[in-house]
């Protein structure tokens, strides 16, 4: 970021404001590109993982090597599809909803620290900000469901919104012990606090067992937050056709699809950043050879794989089970983690 800033001020002779705006624009373009690319990679990965879990191959032909080009072909196909807007729908809101859903995850992407000094928006409230802007996705889903003027879509949206605002609580609470340990809400500081190999990562149960529990709370809540199986109640094919995006076709549907994978990658990256040491390699020596962004993305991808594994292994839960799990199990356990982590750190003198 400093480098880019210096380039704009030094080489192009811009003043501070101009350079800041330029850096922000460049970062926005980079983030959006990475997001679109990651959606393409993740769709292919999802189909291969699903195939592997179900003892079949998944896409095999397009692009020769294990059908790697299938996702690209699908994207091109979806660009050419007819854009259908239902006659009785609320047209303005119907068109705006996919943008809002995508905007919610893109805004959150801004605060991910990819490498030392490579963050689109490096500010002190990063983690809090990520959880706050994710709520735009909830509004977008409600908007999509209501504007479609379709019972299934509305049911899907109502379920989705209820689920997402419920699971936001354990999700944010699970990250609180980490904030207490790092003494900062800034994502970069949280990662820097975990320097020194796998032993110093926040997940290490010997340093603080409550952080270890918090990781699992975060992981479960993140699955529910992205509306993926076994918590894919908003999209249950057997009951609601496709949930809140039932009426969407072509590019507008692709926006929801993109947002789903962007969100999946986002929550996995946050888990990697908060609990698994972010850009630090497991052994300090490796930091010299592996670029920080690469080890960060590898951790994120491992968590994405874990997420897909869970999705294709477990059967879907019922709505009441979902709410029971959230309000009566996960929120109390997360609160316990916050209190326990505080007491543990005080007892061992780890407080900053």
């Amino acid at each position: 970021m400093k480098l880019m800033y210096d380039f704009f001020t030094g080489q192009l002779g811009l003043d501070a404001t101009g350079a800041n705006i330029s850096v922000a624009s460049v970062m926005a373009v980079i983030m959006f590109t990475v997001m679109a690319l990651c959606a393409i990679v993740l769709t292919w990965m999802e189909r291969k993982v699903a195939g592997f879990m179900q003892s079949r191959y998944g896409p095999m032909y397009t692009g020769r090597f294990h059908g790697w080009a299938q996702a690209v072909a699908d994207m091109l196909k979806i660009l050419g599809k007819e854009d259908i807007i239902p006659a009785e729908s609320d047209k303005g809101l119907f068109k705006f909803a996919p943008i809002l859903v995508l905007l919610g995850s893109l805004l959150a992407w801004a605060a991910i620290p990819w490498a030392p000094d490579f963050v689109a928006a490096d500010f002190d409230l990063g983690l809090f900000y990520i959880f706050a802007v994710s709520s735009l996705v909830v509004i977008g889903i409600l908007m999509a469901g209501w504007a479609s003027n379709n019972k299934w879509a509305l049911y899907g949206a109502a379920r989705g919104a209820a689920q997402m605002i419920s699971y936001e609580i354990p999700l944010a609470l699970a990250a609180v012990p980490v904030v207490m340990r790092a003494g900062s809400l800034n994502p970069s500081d949280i990662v820097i606090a975990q320097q020194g190999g796998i032993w110093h990562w926040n997940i290490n149960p010997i340093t603080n067992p409550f952080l270890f529990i918090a990781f699992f709370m975060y992981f479960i809540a993140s699955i529910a937050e992205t509306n993926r199986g076994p918590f894919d109640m908003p999209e249950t094919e057997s009951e609601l056709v496709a949930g809140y995006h039932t009426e969407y076709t072509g590019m507008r549907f692709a926006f929801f699809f993109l947002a789903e994978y962007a969100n999946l990658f986002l929550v996995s990256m946050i888990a990697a950043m908060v609990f698994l040491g972010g850009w630090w390699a497991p052994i300090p020596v490796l930091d010299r050879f592996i670029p920080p962004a690469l080890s960060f993305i590898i951790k994120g991808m491992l968590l994405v794989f874990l997420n897909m594994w869970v999705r294709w292994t477990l059967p879907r839960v019922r709505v009441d089970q979902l709410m029971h799990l959230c309000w009566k199990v996960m929120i109390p356990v997360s609160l316990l983690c916050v209190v326990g982590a505080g007491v543990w750190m005080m007892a061992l003198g780890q407080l900053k």
Partner: protein
Amino acid sequence: MIRDLVFVLLALLTVVPAFWVVFSRNIVHAGFALLFTLVGVAGLYGFLGADFLAVTQLMVYVGGVLVLVLFTVMMTHVPAAKRSRHGLDRYVPPAVFAAAVFGVLYKVITAVKWNVGEASTAPTTTEIGTQLMTNYVFPFEYVSIVLLAAMVGAAILIRERSHAGSDDAIAEEKQEARP
């Protein structure tokens, strides 16, 4: 220059949808327009250097209150055909009331001697946390207890109503009615 431009954009983002909220005939549209107003207010907080307040505004109002408002509005939505057009009598009293509130607020804003200065861009979170845990710990805890009481109260209200409507409750009433 750019500061003014940003301010004007944020102010427009706050005010224009606010008019939409008030004048829209479709109550769900009004609810969704509220989204832009709330985001605009968060932007204004951020613009003034109150970063924690800005993000809290997003978290509480967009993530919580607005979702609740939308849920309520969607459940009570009246189809377009049944909506009646109101006459002048429906516009004048609220307009007078709004003008009165505006007058009072304007008077207050102009009468108070504000401590005007360059907005500080220093992060506020640490300071807010320290203040909440030291100088303002009593109000903080007091508000927590009030909110807890409200939550328990809401839970009891809902439980009683759903209990009264259930088959068990009816059966119990019948049992009690028996001699």
